């Protein structure tokens, strides 16, 4: 009744529902923490600004060190580790730790976001469910990303982005089986989230109309600035995180508190906007609340605040801060451009949204996700062209200036060598055309007699000849076999009657060389034929050709 794959799909739906429920509770917990720690007003008092994040920081450090050590670190990398190292295992305790500590951290004003913890909570729940159900090892490996997609989708209210992100950054490959489960879990978690929290997009901006195509240049400038800011942000983490981790162990009790205090000072000095996830302020920036100069200051301060929070080991995610920095930077660049060139059509919301995508592409290095994320969180498809242009530029700049993506930097700092999805995407793969030999001068026809084939073979130095079959397909025959047949007195028989099989597999020049490996050990010479004309021989390939090409490639 229930085939394994269908059963897994059904389990994915339950994973999505449970993750959605968990994320809803997580959101409530963050809000409650904020209300009780920072007060109900939009701008907390100075006392609260200074005391809440620092005192909560002490509690966070104690909880992380003594109770939930695995709650520290990137949820994305922990999900990847579960997939590639731990056979899908993520302790449920990690989810509990992430839930409690991240809610306290974000609610107290640490500059972190709820998305990465949500992702990890989803992954952890999925892993726990998979273990309880005793799923096979293959399924267990995949179950954590399925939960991760559900958690992220609920956190962002963006199922497409979550699916893309998990495929792009965690799993790294598309197959129908994985995609089905990931999509189902993401969609079901979003349905649950919308049931409780409403279906409105995260941000709402008016439709955008580019007055003239040249305005894309203005967005390109945003792409350049965003790319550089991404590199600065990521470099800061790369530089400071290991230094903080290497400090004496007793300092780890104080690091979140000191980070919280410094962030509180930033807030008390006039920029409380940098505290917490900051979605409300992003919305206000999109509504033109701040001048472009202040937006630039906020972007800079948010980078500082997030660096402080993250390198101090406080659990929490970097998605929301990345979006915040992008939104502020976008608004600032747009405002500055408009001040210089007043004829540009100017909407702070548009630039802020594009800025979000730019930082997402440049810092998190998920170019596809960055485009869809912007569209989904705004529900506004009119900005797709500026988003694509700016994101691509930021991504290219970031990749050029900082070859190792931030998630890989973090995993290497944590002593793990997880597969880099970006490197996998960029990897040059060998194809059949890289190893094949040109078509042989002599190609036998299936209707030829063996004597005729032997005469032709005498003119060739090859050991095996390719035979074109009458109607379709190819075959091969060894010269030694031809000689044996002549000696047996079968020279007047046609080739077709003596070939051992009707046809042999063929390859195409664009196929990965790995595919050739499946055939070359069974057939000494495999024809490589044209996709447009299967009777046309583009070349031939043998086991030796494949191995030599791999050997050469290793040397390159």
């Amino acid at each position, binding site marked *: *009744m229930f085939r394994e794959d269908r059963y897994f799909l059904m389990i994915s739906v339950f994973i999505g529902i449970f993750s959605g429920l968990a994320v809803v509770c997580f959101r409530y917990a963050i809000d409650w923490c904020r209300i009780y720690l920072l007060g109900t007003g939009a701008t907390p008092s100075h006392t609260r600004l200074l005391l809440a994040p620092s005192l909560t920081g002490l509690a966070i450090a104690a909880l992380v060190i003594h109770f939930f050590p695995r709650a520290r670190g990137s949820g994305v990398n922990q999900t990847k580790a579960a997939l590639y190292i731990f056979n899908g295992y993520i302790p449920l305790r990690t989810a509990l730790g992430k839930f409690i500590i991240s809610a306290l951290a974000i609610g107290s004003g640490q500059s972190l976001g709820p998305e990465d913890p949500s992702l990890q909570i989803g992954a952890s729940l999925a892993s726990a469910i998979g273990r309880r159900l005793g799923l096979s090892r293959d399924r267990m490996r995949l179950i954590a990303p399925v939960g991760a997609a559900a958690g992220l989708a609920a956190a962002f209210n963006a199922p497409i982005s979550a699916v893309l992100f998990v495929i792009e950054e965690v799993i790294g490959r598309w197959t129908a089986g994985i995609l089905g489960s990931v999509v189902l879990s993401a969609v079901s978690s979003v349905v649950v989230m919308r049931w409780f929290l409403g279906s409105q997009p995260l941000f709402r901006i008016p439709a955008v109309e580019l007055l003239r195509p040249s305005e894309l240049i203005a967005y390109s400038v945003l792409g350049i600035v965003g790319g550089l800011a991404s590199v600065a942000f990521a470099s800061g983490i790369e530089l400071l995180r290991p230094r903080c981790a290497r400090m004496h162990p007793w300092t780890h009790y104080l690091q979140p508190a000191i980070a919280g205090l410094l962030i509180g000072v930033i807030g008390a000095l006039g920029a409380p906007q940098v505290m917490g996830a900051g979605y409300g302020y992003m919305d206000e920036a999109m509504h033109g609340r701040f001048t472009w100069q202040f937006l630039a200051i906020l972007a800079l301060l948010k980078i500082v605040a997030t660096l402080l929070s993250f390198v101090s080991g406080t659990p929490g995610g970097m998605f929301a801060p990345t979006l915040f920095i992008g939104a502020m930077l976008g608004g600032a660049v747009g405002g500055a451009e408009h001040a210089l060139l007043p004829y540009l059509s100017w909407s702070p919301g548009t630039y802020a949204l594009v800025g979000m995508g730019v930082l997402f592409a440049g810092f998190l290095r998920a170019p596809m996700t960055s485009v869809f994320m912007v569209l989904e969180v705004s529900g506004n498809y009119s900005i797709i062209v500026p988003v694509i242009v700016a994101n691509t530029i930021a991504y290219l700049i970031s990749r050029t200036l900082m070859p190792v993506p931030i998630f890989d930097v973090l995993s290497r700092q944590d002593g793990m060598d997880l597969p880099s999805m970006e490197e996998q995407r960029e990897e040059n793969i060998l194809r059949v055309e890289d190893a094949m030999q040109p078509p042989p001068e002599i190609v036998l026809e299936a209707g030829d007699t063996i004597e005729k084939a032997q005469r032709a073979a005498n003119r060739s130095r090859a050991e095996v000849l390719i035979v074109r079959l009458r109607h379709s397909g190819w075959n091969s025959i060894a010269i030694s076999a031809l000689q044996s047949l002549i000696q047996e007195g079968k020279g007047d028989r046609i080739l077709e009657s003596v070939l051992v099989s009707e046809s042999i597999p063929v390859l195409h020049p664009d196929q990965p060389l790995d595919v050739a490996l499946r055939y070359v050990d069974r057939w000494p010479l495999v024809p490589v034929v044209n996709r447009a004309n299967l009777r046309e021989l583009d070349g031939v390939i043998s086991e030796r050709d494949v191995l030599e090409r791999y050997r050469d490639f290793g040397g390159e």
Partner: protein
Amino acid sequence: MATGPFELNSYVGRKPVVLTLLMALTVLLFMTVTGISHIFNSQQQSLAQRWSQRGAVDLKAQHYPEAVADFRTALLYDRDDYSFQLSLAQALLGLHRTDEAYTYLINLWDRQPENGLVNLELARIAAGKGDTWQAIRFYHNAIYATWSGDQDAESRNARFELIHYLLGIRATTQAQAELIAIDANLDADSPLQEQLGELFLKAKDNQHALSAFRRALRQNRRNQAALAGAGVAAYGLARYPIAQRYLEEALAISPNDQISAQRLHKTTSVLMLDPYRPQVSAIDHDRMAIHAFTVAGARLKSCTPSWGPAATAMQNLTKNWNSLKPHVNLSGLRRDPDLVNQAMDLAFSIERQASPVCGVGNDDDQALRLIANLHEEN
């Protein structure tokens, strides 16, 4: 192998049972989260209401910075609330942060394009920015939009505001059209008839203005503003006897009304100088003509350009006036009634020639020009 209460391994062979258990767990968790959600939402609603009420008080008291902060906080707890966003936009407008307010309003407009207040605020912003096309578009939206209170009154107020805006940008014809639209829908006994009359006057539609003021006077015969307005409208229509009557009544109620007094003086001058008006006795007819001729003579004496075509023209007129002067008296006019026309034509010519060279002149000179215009029209 022993299994705990939550170990489902033992059921793995029976997948339907596992799925049923998961379904039951889902229901249980859903109910739990629904309970938590209810508590959370109640608290959020309560906080949102508390802050929005503070905001409303501050907005009413025109404490805009406080109102902005209050509504922003309210939106933290209910970020999609339409009225909070609208109030925030109004508070921002109070602080003249129009760009910020505009972004909120245009989003609200996206959600409810038929909302009258949103359209009206957007119209005001567009008007402030000098974007006439958008302003008129949003004003019209507001006029035909949905209003929460008295639909007709709000719609009419929006139209009045549009009319003020159109008059401000000197789009008189469009203003007249809007006024006629209001006029058609306004009850005759509406207290707004006086305001309507004033606006018709500003839009230079004296006929409709006079009608509106008359309707206002039917409600209150001693409405000084309506009497003065009716006097001005009648004066503009060259119905000087009516104008005189209204202006005299207005001045009787409010003797310090300088504008009405001035207008009455001009009206009286016209009536004193116009021999063509009906129901004038023959002797008065001649006296008026003599008076007008004398006024024109005084004008000639006071206006003597020294050179150019104007000087030549004035010299010719002086010559003509001097040649006609001995005949323009009561006996002369009685002998030759055509002299009245000659004397008046010359007086009109003198005023017309003198006006561009020597200015508008005194009230009598202006009255003569008005009579000339009226005479030509007839």
